[in-house]
């Protein structure tokens, strides 16, 4: 029995136990143990992250002559360890005070259902990641879609329900595209095995490859929320209960990236992506995908800038950061693709931490609305610190880990001679920096409201996972080599040239990156500043929060001058005209088209129009008598 079998058995056992006992108090502790055990099993497989052999499960199924099998390679393992770790952190987050308050607000059953939803998400993702052929990939894909839907549907709000329904409609559309692509593959090769597709794809014509890539990519892009399918994701993730949002935000959408790696890069192949030119343009398939990634970094990020709810702001960022991963991956060189993969890990750490901080703020104050927050830094300093660490990561500034992956993507774009993509990535980062400042300013900085004067720091059960994540962010930022081991193995498994790295960062002939030095210099600079300040007798003085300059106005608790509403009014004056909701209009147009068609067919079917029906029947029968299609 291989380790992978143990993983599946543990998953099944966990699901069974949780399903039976989910109403019982204390089940949350058991869930934490379950994720820890799962993480242990994955660590047992950690050879994969350091160039080990592919691990197969010892069972397989035979259906209609197709063999379904499951295996873990380095790419699967890389995604799986992030998945299980995110699950563990979410489970710890909801095992303490947060869970109690959720129980009180809803019921034992609802809390148990949340636990089940999280567990099903983790399990279905592991099944997806372990898939060894297209059919098992599709099964895993559907499981993941429905598990996410279950998580999203747990919030009884109207907005959340609508978002969940919207999600499942999108997901089904994606699955249909995926299914069509599979049928096409089956038609060509007569099999759904990876190996056969990889073999057959070498002989396919350009038109076939383009059609196949389009169908597959549509399916995967919907899961990942890439342009133009980005509308569903943010609201659905944001409105999920906090631990669910932590998990979904951190990793769920990355399953799309995994499928893109498996199908487009491993099976259809790098050569095809680079060689196939789009008719009537000077682009090849790779450039098109890179530009999809670049636009995904820009558009959702600037939508995030407009959000007035912390959760929605973060979730929109999640969509945008997916663009960086695709962009990095689609450079298809060793540095850029390593950057894209590393960003999956980095992004999971800080997005989880950010959703946790917002969860803690909601736990204490009851709202994530920017208009109703502010000045919480004095009340929740540790939560504030975690948020600062995370937004440094999200904005891609040293010394946090987000800097490393973004640097790698930028650097490879520059080395490849892709100035326009580089500028697009930088514009995306600019939007990120602006909106994370909005996030931290409107929740933690500025002036405290009267009703929040007795707010206390988040309880320990919420703080511990946050602080651990902050530590991971810093350590993997200072020593990215720890994660680059896994990334390089994954690159090998994908058939790319692995990146050259050391513990401190990237080794590159034309100027590498050493985060250990950068971190040391950063702290050295801070230290020098501190020494100068304190040696020259500098003293700090705290002032009252209304002792604040507002053009000479006297501030009171009624007129606080905490500038949060209509933040960035000046910037919006400049770029506000660009927010036209074009994609929303496109979505509405498609909805109208579908409803028009369905009304037409309904009219055909239900209304009594004998003359019309007679004509149609006569025409059809004449056509079939005269030979039909043949």
């Amino acid at each position: 029995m291989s380790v992978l079998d143990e993983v599946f058995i543990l998953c099944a056992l966990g699901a069974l136990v949780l399903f039976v006992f989910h109403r019982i108090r204390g089940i949350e502790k058991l869930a934490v143990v379950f994720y820890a055990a799962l993480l242990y099993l994955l660590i047992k497989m950690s050879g994969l992250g350091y160039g080990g052999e592919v691990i197969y499960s010892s069972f397989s199924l035979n259906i209609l002559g197709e063999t379904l099998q499951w295996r873990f390679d380095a790419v699967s393992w890389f995604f799986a360890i992030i998945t299980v770790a995110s699950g563990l952190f979410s489970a710890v987050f909801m095992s303490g005070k947060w869970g109690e308050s959720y129980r009180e607000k809803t019921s034992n059953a609802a809390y148990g259902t949340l636990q089940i939803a999280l567990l099903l998400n983790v399990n279905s993702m592991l099944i997806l990641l372990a898939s060894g052929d297209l059919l098992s990939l599709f099964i895993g894909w559907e499981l993941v879609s429905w598990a996410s839907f279950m998580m999203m549907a747990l919030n009884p709000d109207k907005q959340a329900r609508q978002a969940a329904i919207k999600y499942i409609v999108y997901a089904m559309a994606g699955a249909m595209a995926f299914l069509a692509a599979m049928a096409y593959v089956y038609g060509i090769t007569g099999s759904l095995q990876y190996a056969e597709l990889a073999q057959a794809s070498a002989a396919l014509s350009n038109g076939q490859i383009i059609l196949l890539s389009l169908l597959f990519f549509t399916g995967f892009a919907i899961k990942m929320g890439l342009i133009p399918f980005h509308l569903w994701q943010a609201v659905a993730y944001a409105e999920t209960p906090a631990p669910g949002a932590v998990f979904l935000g951190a990793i769920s959408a990355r399953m799309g990236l995994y499928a893109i790696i498996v199908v487009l890069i491993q099976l259809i192949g790098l050569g095809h992506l680079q060689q196939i030119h789009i008719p009537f343009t000077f682009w090849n398939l790779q450039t098109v995908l890179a530009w999809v990634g670049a636009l995904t970094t820009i558009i959702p990020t600037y939508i995030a800038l407009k959000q007035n709810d912390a959760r929605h702001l973060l979730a929109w960022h999640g969509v945008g950061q997916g663009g960086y991963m695709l962009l990095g991956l689609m450079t298809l060189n060793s540095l850029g693709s390593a950057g894209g993969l590393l960003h999956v890990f980095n992004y999971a750490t800080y997005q989880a931490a950010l959703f946790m901080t917002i969860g803690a703020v909601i736990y204490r104050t009851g709202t994530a609305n920017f208009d109703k927050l502010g000045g919480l830094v004095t009340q929740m300093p540790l939560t504030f610190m975690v948020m600062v660490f995370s937004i440094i990561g999200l904005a891609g500034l040293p010394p946090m880990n987000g800097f490393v992956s973004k640097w790698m993507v930028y650097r490879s774009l520059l080395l490849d001679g892709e100035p326009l993509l580089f500028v697009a990535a930088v514009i995306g980062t600019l939007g990120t920096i602006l909106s994370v400042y909005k996030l931290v300013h409107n929740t933690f900085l500025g002036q405290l409201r009267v009703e929040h004067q007795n707010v206390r720091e988040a309880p320990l059960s919420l703080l511990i996972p946050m602080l651990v994540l902050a530590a991971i962010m810093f350590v993997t930022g200072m020593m990215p080599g720890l994660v680059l081991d896994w990334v390089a193995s994954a690159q090998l498994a994908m058939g790319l040239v692995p990146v050259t790295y050391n513990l401190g960062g990237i080794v590159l002939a034309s100027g590498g990156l050493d985060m250990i030095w950068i971190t040391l210099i950063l702290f050295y600079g801070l230290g020098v500043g501190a020494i100068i300040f304190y040696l020259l007798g500098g003293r700090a003085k705290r002032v009252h929060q209304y002792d604040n300059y507002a053009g000479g106005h006297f501030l009171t608790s009624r007129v606080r001058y905490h500038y949060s509403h209509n933040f960035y009014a000046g910037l919006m004056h400049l770029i506000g005209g660009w927010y036209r909701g074009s994609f929303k209009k496109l979505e509405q147009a498609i909805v109208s088209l579908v409803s028009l068609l369905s009304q037409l067919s309904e009219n055909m079917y239900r209304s009594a129009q004998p003359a019309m029906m007679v004509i149609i029947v006569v025409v059809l029968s004449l056509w079939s008598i005269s030979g039909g299609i043949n």
Partner: protein
Amino acid sequence: MSKLGNIPVQAKSEKKRTNPLARVFDELIQFCQSRSMFMLHYCTGCGAIELPPAMTSRFDMERLGIQPMVTPRQADILLVTGYVSVKTLKRVILTYEQMQSPKYVIGICSCTVNGGMYWQSYATAKVLNEYLPVDVYIAGCMPRPEAVIMGLRRLMSNIENGKGNAWKDYYERYDYYLGNQQHLFGDDWQTPVDVIGEAKFYDLEGEETYGEHTRTLEQHQEPLEAAVMRVKL
């Protein structure tokens, strides 16, 4: 305490400093201070119109190291450029108190000296230095940019020679200034700035820091405790 006309002149407080090396850098620091000043121009009246030429290329204030600044926290000079109505004066005082020491006030135009053409007005504060310690007055209606620059140079030489100490007077004789302010605004007058706390912070409490007016203030004052960052689990 002597008086030069209406302007009180405070003798430099001669506290014994035990460290013999304590004053080694004083001159250098004063020199540097006088040559890098940010000014917050509180543009109250017509005098403000003379500042753009003084700041821009023709007279070029920046060659003296003087630049405009948008917040009082980073500013060194408060320019009051015209008549101050009672309502405005409250804001001017708040802005002044929010500046970090050492800080200097320049009154531009006759209106700040003696009320100028508004001397009959019921709503205008006539003599600025009854409410704030003024370092330099620049009289005229309105003073030309050359005069403004001359006044600024006067302030620079004062600072360089260690004479620009009016800001200390505000802490040392807070009761006097507060009394005049209360006379104008009423007994419940209060700014959110803890001036007495700052006097303690700068070690500038004098005999006249406290008095009957500060006692009146204490009766009306809302607490000014700063919010402290504390982990309360």
